[in-house]
């Protein structure tokens, strides 16, 4: 690393060029991508839980993940390459965005966009899209498609390259910056809609804006890494136990913790059965799921499950 940063002056290479290429071209962008995706999922999850005022919500609740999966499966199924090397990523993002717009539209029809309407619309949308995805896979002539789709939907950072990084990195920086600026208002959402209004927040408008922001961030995240479960659901809970629920502290903390967790999970995913790789979503769910269950059993009150 020192050699690389100093332009070859400080340290004389005593390694093979192949190793250098692997580290510089593959490993470093992969670690960065894992960190960015983990941080993005963590902050999205935390903000979505505040928007829908439900601690059991996660980034996938808005239908973005299933929309992205449908977009990706369409590309795989019909072998589309129209948009170059990143066709899959672009299709996943567009799929997520389309699903989200529909959820948004359903939740707003006939009046206010309440938390319950949002969650129900997201669940219904996810169910429909999962069915479409399954249908596409089952009717495919390609027997390998099911395995490839499963692999993609479980998530991973195997496709990391330097030129894939700018969009997620910029999205994370902008998204996190806006969330931090709005942290006080996010706190008000936790007090209930009526209280938030009485405390001076234009709840409808604010919720709409935050919904679009988190959805875009989730969409980009899913597009570059597939569906990585449990990070966006669990990290916010752990952070609230550690630093409290105030978003001014909790948002930076969940970004750091999400990034660390995902980088560690990716390390496990690619080394545990090396030279083969596990989808990182399996690792996060295998670690995250039991941990969540343990949390639930130990302290249901802290999760707001029991009043």
């Amino acid at each position, binding site marked *: 690393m020192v050699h690389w940063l100093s332009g070859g002056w400080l340290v004389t290479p005593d390694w093979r060029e192949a190793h250098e290429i692997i580290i510089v071209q593959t490993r470093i962008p992969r670690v960065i991508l894992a960190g960015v995706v983990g941080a993005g999922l963590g902050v999205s999850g935390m903000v979505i839980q505040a928007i829908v005022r439900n601690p059991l919500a996660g980034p996938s609740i808005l239908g973005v993940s299933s929309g992205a999966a449908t977009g990706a499966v369409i590309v795989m199924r019909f072998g589309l390459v129209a948009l170059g090397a990143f066709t899959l990523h672009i299709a996943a993002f567009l799929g997520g965005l389309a699903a989200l717009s529909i959820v948004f539209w359903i939740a707003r029809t006939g009046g206010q966009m309440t938390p319950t309407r949002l969650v129900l619309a997201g669940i219904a949308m996810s169910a429909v899209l999962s069915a479409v995805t399954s249908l596409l896979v089952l009717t495919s002539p390609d027997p390998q498609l099911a395995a490839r789709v499963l692999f993609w939907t479980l998530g991973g950072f195997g496709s990391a390259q330097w030129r894939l990084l700018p969009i997620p990195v910029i999205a994370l920086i902008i998204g996190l910056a806006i969330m931090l600026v709005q942290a006080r208002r996010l706190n008000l959402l936790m007090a209930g809609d009526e209280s938030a209004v009485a*405390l*001076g927040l234009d709840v409808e408008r604010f919720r709409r804006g935050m919904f679009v922001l988190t959805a875009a961030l989730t969409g980009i995240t899913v597009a570059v890494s597939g569906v990585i479960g449990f990070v966006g659901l669990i990290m916010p809970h752990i952070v609230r136990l550690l630093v409290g629920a105030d978003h001014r502290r909790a948002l930076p903390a969940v970004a750091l913790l999400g990034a660390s967790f995902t980088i560690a999970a990716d390390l496990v995913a690619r080394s545990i059965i090396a030279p083969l790789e596990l989808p990182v979503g399996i690792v996060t769910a295998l670690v995250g799921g039991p941990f969540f269950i343990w949390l639930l059993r130990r302290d249901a009150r802290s999760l707001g499950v029991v009043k």
Partner: protein
Amino acid sequence: MTVRAGAQTLVDDVTLEVRPGAFLGLLGPNGAGKSTLLRTIYRMIPPDAGVVRLNGEDAWRRSSAWVAQHVGAVIQDMPAEFPLTVRDVVAMGRSAHKALLEPDTPHDTALIDAAIALQQLGAFQHRAFRTLSGGERQRALLARALVQQPQILVLDEPTNHLDIRYQLSLLRFVREIGVTVIAALHDLNLAAMFCDRLCLMDRGRVVALGTPEDVLTPARLGDVYGVHATIQRHPRTDTVWVLPG
């Protein structure tokens, strides 16, 4: 002012004026429109006709934040989903006074500390809000409204969940801090004891408006609540004292 919900008229052509520093009590059976009237003041429900004027300005032409700088509301809306501490909840009251990204100043901290001390919440300010009893929650929500530094306090059934000691101390407290108070109350005797003026509502309309002596008469209580009541004077405070039956 009039407020409708679908075909139903919740508040029907009501005109009310509250002088600065006065304590107005809204009385009436469930569904009389008391809460709806209060909700137009803290900008939760817009009036379908008429205006809400605060210091001569139309509240619905100003922002939510502007209204929150002038009106503090204590309502039955308890955050329970997230592990907010009592102090987190109280501190939310400063939000309308803060620019984006502006950190809490020593002034904010002092206001929050003072409100917590006044409501005797010091011992559990770092406890989770949802672990408090109903009465403790109510005091925390009052502390939150106080740090808004409002000119007007809006209270919706503030004595719910409170034992008699805290009912009395809450009403005495809000009467003595010198802000204008508009409160929906169920207890007629407490209302008579603390309010300067009472407004008796029924099915969205104002039935009577005036001093407790004027408003609380056996005939009106019979009309509005459908109960027989005897009116006496309280032997010690000399306020109107309603005895059902």
